[in-house]
């Protein structure tokens, strides 16, 4: 049976088609200003035919934007289900997206035991990294890579992306080496994510998903702060969509029924 999960995020829309617990097809497109148009665009990029898909489940902050879904699940439920499918040994899931961060504690079946969310503050999500990369005038990939070459520690005091940008401007004026600033940026966001993880308690193994998992600098800082090596899937952005697709296979959803976590 083919099922699909649609994850309508703040920055990107992801669709995963799953069968027998595995990914068979997927697409990622920018969300842009029109979520519905982005969803249709992503749908068009799939190799799978729409009529072959039996159940569609939607998740993400914009999940109600699509009329295609038979059911909806929260991002926490979707992230947990997707992570355990890829990493059966995971007991903590860290999901850092463009605008939200989540720390989820799960059992061996992927059932959610506890979770903490940051959805109010850009400094605990990808928006922070983007703002900093702009201030440093480098791409996100460059910023991640160069932070690994840092030789000096620089303090970043600001907890807020807006203040951190001003702080960066001062550091740039003082000719602080870019790798050191990049390192400080990743340490700062890692710090915030780890304090969120501590609220639910860390149990190994730890899986890291969401777009920010692609940032090698952030991963390096996170591993250091956690004292553990996080498990990262090949395509970290699509894990919640995978989870939604798998949840669609477990129960048949009545139209617009909201699944409980």
């Amino acid at each position, binding site marked *: 049976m083919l099922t699909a999960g649609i994850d309508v995020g703040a920055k990107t829309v992801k669709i995963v088609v799953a069968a027998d617990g595995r990914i068979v097809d997927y697409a990622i497109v920018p969300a842009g*200003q029109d979520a519905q148009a982005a969803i249709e665009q992503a749908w068009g990029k799939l190799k799978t035919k729409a009529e072959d898909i039996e159940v569609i489940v939607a998740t993400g902050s914009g999940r109600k934007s699509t009329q295609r879904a038979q059911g909806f699940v929260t991002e926490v439920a979707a992230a947990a289900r997707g992570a355990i499918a890829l990493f059966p040994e995971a007991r903590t899931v860290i999901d850092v997206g463009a*605008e939200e961060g989540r720390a989820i504690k799960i059992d061996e079946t992927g059932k959610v035991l506890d979770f903490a969310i940051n959805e*109010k*503050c*850009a400094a605990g999500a990808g*928006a*922070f990294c983007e*703002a900093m990369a702009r201030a440093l005038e480098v791409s996100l990939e460059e910023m991640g890579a160069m932070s690994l070459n840092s030789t000096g520690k620089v303090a970043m005091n600001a*907890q*807020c*992306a*807006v*203040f951190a940008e*001003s702080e960066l401007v*001062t550091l740039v*004026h003082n000719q602080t080496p870019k790798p050191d600033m990049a390192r400080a940026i990743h340490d700062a966001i890692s710090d915030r994510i780890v304090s969120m993880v501590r609220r639910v308690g860390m149990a190994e193994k730890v899986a890291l998903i969401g777009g920010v998992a692609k940032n090698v600098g952030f991963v390096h800082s996170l591993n250091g702060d956690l004292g553990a090596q996080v498990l990262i899937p090949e395509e970290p952005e699509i894990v919640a969509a995978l989870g939604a697709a798998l949840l669609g296979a477990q129960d048949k959803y009545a139209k617009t029924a909201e699944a409980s976590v």
Partner: protein
Amino acid sequence: MAEEYWRWTESRWTDPDLKWQDAKIITAGVDVGSVSSQAVVMLDGRLYCYGNTRTGSNSPDSAVKVMNMALEGTGLKIEDLQYTVGTGYGRVNVPFGNRAITEIACHARGANFMYGPSVRTVLDMGGQDCKAIHCDDRGKVTNFLMNDKCAAGTGRGMEVFADLLSVPINDVGELSLKVEDEPPPVSSTCVVFAKSEASGLLREGWPKEKVLAAYCSAMAHRVFTLLERIGMEKEFAITGGIAKNVGVVSRLEKELGVKALKAKIDTQIAGAIGAALFAKALVEKEGKKK
């Protein structure tokens, strides 16, 4: 070079009716914030002159610069000041300062001077923090709550929006009131999210005044929650730069159901006034002279 919409007006002023040569006690207060700095000189506890400028990258230099700005044209020199109290984020870096006192205490004291002994709740909306302060009839602090971690509800947040919309920051308040119907607010908990929401609204064709209304509304709500947590006790007064923004103030008053006392003095100098008054009290009580 891009126009600097965030640049608010710097200013200085001298009371033409006072003569410092006749004064017994000449004290000064310097408030060095992360965004702006103010210096105030008082003659026997009366406001004589002040300066208000943007803080540079160097705190001590900013303190000297704003003090000289306040003294400009008066004939008074820094050496003539009997006692100077520094406050604000850069308070320990005032080279000619005799003592540092926290900005919470100074804002309460300054608000008491500016608005009178009936003030019990002071909302200071500064450059990079906002504070809700409870005080007694002598301007002494009885309780306070502060957000200094986050740009929401601060001048920096407003600067970001002025820049985004290419509207000079001094015009933001008036312009935001030119809407027919109040739009729903954008994110009140995060300037970064509010900014991306606003970009989307602009793309949808919202006029500038509507977007500004949504942001002023968000900012008003943000500080409202701060006041809610500490409790509102009348009379209510606002200090700091955003007090000059009628768009935020009017919406906050509406949400509170309470009107703020109106100031006749520049609201940004409240901290420096409080500092100068503390300096006077120290001169009197402890007979401290330089």
